[in-house]
């Protein structure tokens, strides 16, 4: 029994330590972020930010688009199979449009980026730690948070909402394709219905979520990298851990945001 309590206590303290570290890292990054901005910041940081934006956003575009098309199609088919029984197949348009802008677009994008870029952040920073590159930054009087993390975070804050908008668009296009194939609904008419069914607040709440997801993915990925201890095997563990933890936290954050928007933002 004392062992069980001891383990519970230790795990709790470890989790609190992790949350505390994430918080400290977030505030340190926000303080250092100015250096990554264009014009007012350091031009080398901004160049690093642009490189990161290409890696997080542009390189993920085919994957995110395909995921959105497949999910849009699946959602439309599953919705139609039930709604058809009640003669309400036209509600598939609302289901896909509202479902994507509020929920599926941000979530799918976050899961894809977490797998691609969250793991890459952890691996890159973990390797820099193992090979003493982070130490060499410090002895050159350069702050690793400013040098490594700030460009990644800013790039995530810009790229992930952009990817989310693209994901929304492809999901809705896939829904339109299904409606055309199954009911011969004209694409222009479909898009008019889509615009009628979604409100600006749906898009904004989705984008707020995507900013929160970008924060989670960038910070969990980077923190896992900074926490690497030992050799290359721990880099592998941190990479796995970055994906698992960021995906888990993205879903938890999604639930929290959805609850907040459900109870506070009324149509």
């Amino acid at each position, binding site marked *: 029994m004392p062992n069980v309590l001891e383990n519970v206590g230790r795990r709790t303290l470890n989790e609190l330590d992790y949350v505390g570290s994430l918080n400290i890292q977030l505030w340190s990054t926000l303080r250092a972020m100015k250096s990554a901005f264009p014009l007012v910041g350091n031009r080398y940081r901004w160049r690093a930010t642009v490189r990161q934006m290409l890696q997080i956003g542009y390189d993920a575009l085919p994957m995110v688009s395909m995921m959105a098309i497949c999910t849009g199609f699946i959602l439309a088919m599953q919705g139609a199979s039930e709604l058809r029984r009640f003669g309400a197949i036209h509600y598939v348009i609302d289901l896909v449009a509202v479902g994507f802008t509020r929920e599926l677009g941000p979530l799918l994008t976050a899961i894809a980026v977490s797998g691609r870029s969250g793991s890459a952040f952890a691996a890159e920073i973990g390797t820099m730690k193992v090979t*003493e*590159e982070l130490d*060499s930054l*410090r*002895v*050159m009087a350069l702050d690793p948070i400013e040098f490594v993390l700030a460009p990644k975070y800013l790039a995530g804050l810009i790229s992930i909402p952009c990817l989310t908008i693209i994901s929304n668009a492809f999901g809705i296009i896939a829904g339109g394709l299904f409606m055309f194939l199954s009911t011969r609904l004209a694409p222009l008419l479909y898009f008019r219905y889509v615009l009628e069914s979604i409100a600006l607040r749906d898009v904004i709440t989705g984008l707020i979520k995507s900013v929160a997801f970008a924060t989670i993915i960038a910070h969990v990925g980077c923190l896992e990298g900074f926490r690497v201890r030992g050799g290359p095997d721990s880099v592998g563990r941190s990479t796995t851990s970055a994906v698992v933890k960021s995906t888990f936290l993205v879903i938890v954050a999604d639930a929290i945001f959805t609850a907040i928007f459900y109870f506070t933002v009324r149509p």
Partner: protein
Amino acid sequence: MPIISIRDLVVEYDGRRVLDGLNLDVEPGEAMVLLGGSGSGKSTLLRQIIGLERPKSGNVIVKGIDITRCSPSELKKVRHSIGVAFQSAALFNSLSVKDNVALPLREHTKLAPSIIDLMVWMKLAVVGLADFGKLLPQELSGGMKKRGAVARALALDPEILVLDEPSAGLDPIVAAELDELILLLKEAFHMTIIVVTHEMPSAFRIADRIAMLHQGTFSSVGTKEEIKASQDPRVRHFLDRTPEDLANATAVAAHFEKYLHTPEINQ
């Protein structure tokens, strides 16, 4: 007045004492070699000297500033006068050798790009890498990487150059070339040089004075002639390459005897 002064330095990791009350003065322009076997604490001492870790107690005073207690801005100022080449070279893999050397100049000076290019070429020429600036670190041999790390450490013309195991893992010819380079830097630029090594020929070639570390304490500090003549058994073991703790046959036999009488083995 010493440029580096270490006073009663104690370092502990998880309650295990790694450095135990060290005292050492390094004079300006001196080449000090920290010699010692694996696990003697020489890399730990080096990390204290460059301010990467804080001790449990004691002081490390560099150019009159106690880096164990100073503010981050004072530490940054001290770090501008220290150049460090790590054991693993720690060149940034994503940057070319030229960009690695240019990094501290771009970050800490307002020099025009053409002047930075010229300075980088000069630093690379000093270490014999003038024709290899465009290559990535992974395209260089082990010795070239180390020389690249020395070039980067020299970028800001530091007063103190710290080298961690510069000849480890190199063939004798390349190691001898590095020794000559270190001597050249000392003579030409009047730098204070601290070298951590366990390579005896390198140590005796480079050093003005040698500090011999043994289990976290200095077993001997003196000129290379004094160290060569030392009769301290710990120094003699190291210099004569004789094993310090031969397996005690009686103790091993007693251990097995005890093991054979344990209840598990008799069941």
